[in-house]
């Protein structure tokens, strides 16, 4: 019996101690009419070898591809040590560290994580992680509304990742919060202060400030922070943690810094893995810590005065505060946070900065190579990080399909979410892409554009 250690002898002895003749008796409180009398119609059991064979076959992609999609999930080098350590049984198979004395390993890792993230964001405190970047943004807005104690309106630039905007809407809509979308400048690709003006007389709890934004374009963060602060709202930064190795941290934006910064932790050592598990992070100013959702680890002392770590401020959480909790979140993404902590320790600040700089430089080089192809141009001429929007002279979906056949994931089609941009692709090259890879993309794009199956516009 897979994973069940009972011998027939054990079963007999145990039933005897319980005082029933057969296993069936254990379920005698379940109404008879509800009991199942045959096993569920799921496939029969496979041995480990059989399931390994099945999965090995399914894990193989149809062909090896070069990936130029970013759009919220980034292919970075992950040191081998990260997952060899994170999957050690003592991390992998431990529970949430409620019994602090038996969980000092995980707790110290989380405390180190909080220190790293707070410093990366230039803010005072960090929690120990949330589900993912999108839901972290939703939590941040709920938190901002709680903290504001007045307005239930938040401003959301259209330059925020479209999926994030959808997630935020799904998460906040039941609490009567109004999410107002702020249009971007279609020339420069970022949010202009002018676009905010219509709301300058209204009570606004928060403004989301993505840096870089979904297009890879850098937002005028100082102006935006100052704008919302002048109106009594909170500035919520949405940032890429790797780029924070290079870019000004949210805590340093504008005159008094963003109040909350959140983002997707995946670029910090988490494999792409089809979209998850990743983790969200949240950092904020000290004054807001009691409004923060999620677990928080604090340093303290033991009976003998030795330092140790424990979950703290639990009165914010659902298991204590129940319907008044700051969030319903309970299990989050602990192991991912452990991996990210090890990842950051292995890279250090110099390493992280290099990854950020190389990724930006690669994408800038890619954009140059692609736009050297006749008919291909760049949208949004200003400075951009490690994503860029390029415009094609042919149907973007046809081009992507043709590129896939050539072994290239050519970027994200912006047609659905930004139809106003025409045949636009969001492309990304991280530090993992060599010059030869960029050249390969450029060559294949040129070929794809000549492909008869690709319809010119």
């Amino acid at each position, binding site marked *: 019996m897979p994973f069940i250690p009972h011998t027939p002898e054990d079963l007999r002895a145990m039933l005897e101690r319980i*005082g029933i003749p057969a296993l069936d008796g254990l379920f005698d409180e379940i109404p008879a009419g509800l009991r199942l009398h045959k096993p569920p119609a799921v496939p029969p059991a496979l041995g480990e070898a059989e399931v390994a064979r099945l999965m090995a076959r399914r894990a193989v*992609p149809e062909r090896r591809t070069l990936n130029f999609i970013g759009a919220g999930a980034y292919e970075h080098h992950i040191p081998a040590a990260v997952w060899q350590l994170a999957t050690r049984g003592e991390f992998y198979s431990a529970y949430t560290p409620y019994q602090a004395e038996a969980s*000092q390993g995980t707790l110290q890792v989380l405390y*180190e994580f909080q220190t790293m993230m707070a410093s990366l964001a230039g803010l005072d405190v960090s929690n120990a992680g949330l589900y993912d970047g999108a839901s972290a943004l939703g939590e941040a807005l709920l938190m901002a509304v709680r903290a504001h104690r007045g307005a239930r309106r938040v401003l959301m630039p259209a330059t925020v990742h479209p999926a994030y905007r959808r997630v935020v809407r799904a998460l906040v809509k039941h609490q009567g919060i109004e999410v107002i979308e702020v249009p971007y400048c279609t020339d420069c690709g970022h949010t202009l202060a002018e676009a905010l003006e219509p709301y300058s007389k209204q009570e606004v709890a928060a403004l989301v400030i993505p840096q870089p934004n979904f297009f890879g374009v850098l937002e005028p963060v100082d102006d935006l922070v100052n704008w919302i602060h002048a109106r009594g709202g909170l500035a919520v930064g949405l940032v890429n943690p790797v780029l924070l*190795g*290079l*870019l000004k941290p949210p805590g340093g934006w504008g005159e008094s810094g963003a109040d909350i910064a959140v983002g997707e932790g995946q670029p910090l050592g988490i494999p792409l893995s089809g979209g998850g598990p990743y983790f969200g992070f949240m950092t904020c100013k000290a004054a807001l810590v009691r409004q923060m959702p999620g677990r928080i680890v604090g340093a303290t002392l033991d009976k003998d005065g030795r330092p140790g770590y424990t979950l703290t401020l639990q009165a914010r959480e659902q298991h204590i505060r129940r*319907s008044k*909790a700051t969030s319903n979140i309970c299990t989050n993404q602990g192991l991912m946070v452990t991996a990210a902590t090890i990842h950051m320790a292995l890279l250090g600040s110099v390493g992280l900065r*290099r990854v950020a700089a190389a990724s930006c430089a690669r994408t800038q080089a890619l954009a140059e190579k692609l736009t050297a192809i006749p008919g291909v141009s760049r949208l949004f001429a200003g400075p951009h990080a490690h994503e860029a929007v390029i415009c094609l002279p042919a149907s973007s979906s046809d081009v992507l399909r043709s590129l896939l056949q050539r072994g290239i994931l050519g970027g994200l089609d912006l047609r659905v979410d930004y139809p106003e941009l025409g045949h636009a692709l969001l492309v990304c090259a991280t530090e993992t892409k060599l010059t030869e890879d960029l050249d390969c993309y450029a060559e294949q794009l040129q070929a794809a554009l000549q492909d008869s199956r690709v319809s010119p516009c």
Partner: protein
Amino acid sequence: MLIFELSRPGRGSFHQAPAPVPEPQLPPALLRALPPLLPEVSELDAVRHYTRLSQKNFSIDTQFYPLGSCTMKYNPRACNQLAMLPGFLAAHPAAPEAAIQGLLACLYDLQEILKEVTGMAAVSLTPMAGAQGEFAGVAMIRAYHDSRGDAERTEIIVPDAAHGTNPATAAMCGYATREVSTDREGNVDLAALRSAVGPKTAGLMLTNPSTLGVFEPSIEAIRDIVHGAGGLLYYDGANLNAILGKVRPGDMGFDVIHVNLHKTFSTPHGGGGPGAGPVGVSARLAEFLPVPVVAKEEGGYRWLTELERPRSIGRLSAHGGNVGVLLRAYVYARMLGREGMARVADYATLNANYLMAELARAGFELAFPRRRASHEFIVSLKNLKETTGIGAMDVAKRLLDKGFHAPTTYFPMLVSECLLIEPTETESKETLDAFVAAMREILEEAHTRPELVKNAPHTLPVRRLDDVKAARDLNLTWKPNPG
């Protein structure tokens, strides 16, 4: 020693980082002035530090972990290995479906398996933990009522024994929570329920078997009461392990369910996640499921998103949820297979009832001595506390000294000085017997050497930690030169 204290300027080797490149063109005003506080350590430093830290943890791979409501069972190593095959790890979430058919096939199959074992009509895998599954479920209840123009329903009913995520979720979905009480045998007080339901009732959230470790025998009456009042029934599937293959929430009449894959389907808890909390629904709620879900069509598998599912409650994560966790659960489900599913409940329940019987024999007081345990049960130390001053927390800490993780303490709040004990089916009789022996010893110590128990633990990396100080003198990040 913190990793920061190992740091020395100039120590990093950078062979994990790319070679320096010409700086990208970025406006200086948007660049960082001071480097972040990341340690500069050698790879050996980091490996040694985190290896040693890991050894300070208890875990399933090293200890028995009878945490009630948490289902800490063995996490098969194959699940980890197969979910981490390079082909899965490299899959970009926005990759064209044609490039990830194998991955989608696994997810689709898992949807089907969950439909079958829960008895629900449709499943979405996207919620990233139980609580997010609850959110999805309650949001669907709300969407259902809204779709019928039924805007009066503003209350979610929860039993007082419910997990904290239940009321917290109701609040996030804009509902008021109304508690109903539990009777002396651990069942929902039907009279109280009857008087609680009405035109304001959006639904009832129920854990069955409940967090008190007993199966609700009047489940059919409860269903009729709630449905009769126009409310929907939500099944908190955290305890599905107890009934897997024995009885199905769908057959009991539930409209919505979430399943904690990190419990019943044995994906690892990882020191606090990631988990996964797929939701299943009856047919009338199917259109509201969170997106994406995986469909199987002529040409292969594909994602259904907001475009195909306009009435969906929407999207709960940027991509498709905790895919790697779903793969682990899928591998587990395939290894259990048809026959294995029901054995989970058989042996989880056997272990709980055996442990309950043995602890009773050892002199511990059961919260519900006349009831059959489900996969878990409650011991109350109320009398011990009164006679010796030794409470649940002390016994828990003393167990750590004896090499066992503590059971869940002080939850459910209904039973004072409670230990909620869940052995799971993957532990052997020998382990249960050793646990009983340790509990006996502690009972003895409580009477003969109470200080030993009160001051436990004695053998761990730290002694009992000062929680009050942690909350009062908040210290959430390390700072260089604290002096």
